[in-house]
């Protein structure tokens, strides 16, 4: 079986072809122009992951929300579940860039961290 993937590891957007055996084993990866592309294509076929960037509500800050991201990639299928967890949280200002806002979200081992400062009002 063949799987065509557009690599998103960088802005190049290489078209990668992955040959899979009937049992889903990866036989070959072609079309990538770097090592990261090879790794991306393999992950995409076995356990697709995405990084998540969103906002968390803040109380008492100069803004109503502070931006945040997953410190690592999350399983693609869990993104909307993670959004529900993040949107249920309310953080007290001040928030500093890099603060862990939600540790180990949904048991993934990945923290949700602030990506900007939000000083208290």
């Amino acid at each position: 079986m063949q799987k065509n993937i557009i690599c998103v590891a960088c802005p190049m957007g290489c078209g990668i072809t992955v040959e899979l055996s009937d049992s889903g084993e990866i036989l070959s990866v072609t079309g990538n122009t770097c090592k990261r592309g090879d790794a991306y294509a393999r992950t995409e076929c076995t356990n697709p992951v995405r990084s998540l960037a969103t906002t968390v509500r803040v109380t008492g800050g100069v803004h109503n929300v502070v931006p945040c991201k997953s410190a690592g990639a999350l399983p693609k299928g869990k993104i909307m579940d993670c959004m529900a967890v993040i949107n249920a949280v309310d953080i007290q200002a001040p928030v500093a860039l890099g603060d862990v806002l939600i540790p180990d979200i949904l048991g993934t081992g990945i923290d949700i961290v602030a990506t900007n400062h939000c000083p208290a009002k």
Partner: protein
Amino acid sequence: MLNYDIVVIGGGPAGMAAALKAKECGVDSILILERAESLGGILEQCIHTGFGLHYFGEELSGPEYADRFIKLVHEQKIEYKVDTMALEITDTNVVYAINKTDGLLEIQAKAVILAMGCRERPRGALNIAGTRASGVMSAGTAQKYVNIDGYMPGKKVVILGSGDIGLIMARRMTLEGAEVKIVCELMPYSSGLTRNIVQCLDDFGIPLRLSCTVIDIHGEGRVEGVTIADVDENRRPIPGTEQYIECDTLLLSVGLIPENELTRAVGIDLDPVTSGAIVDEYRETSHPGVFACGNVLHVHDLVDYVTLESQTAGEGAANYVLGKKAEAAYIATKGVNGVRYIVPQKVNLNNGNDVKLYFRVGQTYKNAAISVKYNGEEILRRKRPRLAPGEMENVILKKEMLEKFEADGLIEIGVEV
């Protein structure tokens, strides 16, 4: 009257990088003027990741990318004023600006760096028919509502334009619970980065319809729906392809325009294709001592390139202030055969450095080559498996090569298939 060696207009990624480089090159008297309440520019609302892959070798969010430079501005003790609007620059490099605490500022600069960024094309620039119901806004406006203010501007969304901001907002609105019904693109290709089409649309099953536009907006008070239609090769709607789509929000991501009011008012020569100033390799404009960099010069797709270009402008401004500017012997650059524009538009042969020429193509190409010619003779040829209008390209002219050229020569870059 205040006096500074360099006044930088705009405290986004371009302005900060230019100021920092000028400081590094030995100029201490620098002032950054920023219209918003903080430094960082548009990066502050670009909370998605993907910034800095080229420059820092890691994937940062917009605010994180900005924060690295904001920290350096503080460390280097570069002066800046926020909530400050630059009103005018004069032909003697006096900058007029205004804010609530200082009132009117009159600043004599030796050099000025223009780093005002760009602005989104609004509905009025498209002449879309229909009612003036609320719920029609630029994608960047919606981005600010969601990411800075924490409000959702709508629940059922149609997006016109598949530029990066439109794609990013399709994902962002979906993550926050809105239903993005379709992204319509007038052109037969998307101007957005491939990875954004994959990660922002394909991942969420949002359809992208090419050669399609919005021809009518319906609703009293609030948008109730839009009519879309396919377009022919002349971008005219094809009768019979009209389709009504129910929605409460229409986001426009239909292009960016460099914000050059100050530039135009002082009479600096502009390039009709980029809508930015005509510059040399140090990004000096037709007005001595005035430099331009970042999105005010030409719209970039990656902030990393904005940073690099702005460092070049910062170095040029520092050279100008320190009296190290090389004597002028210019060759011109020109895009031909599918190359829409080249920045810089001219190169001083006496500067003694390699020069990177940035350019953009007008359509997509596969397995093409870039041909660089000097006075009609090919001097460089580079294979390109893929060329797209949304992705800025570059070639380097080595200084050894430049040494062989003569003033008033012409460099042409074209695509060959």
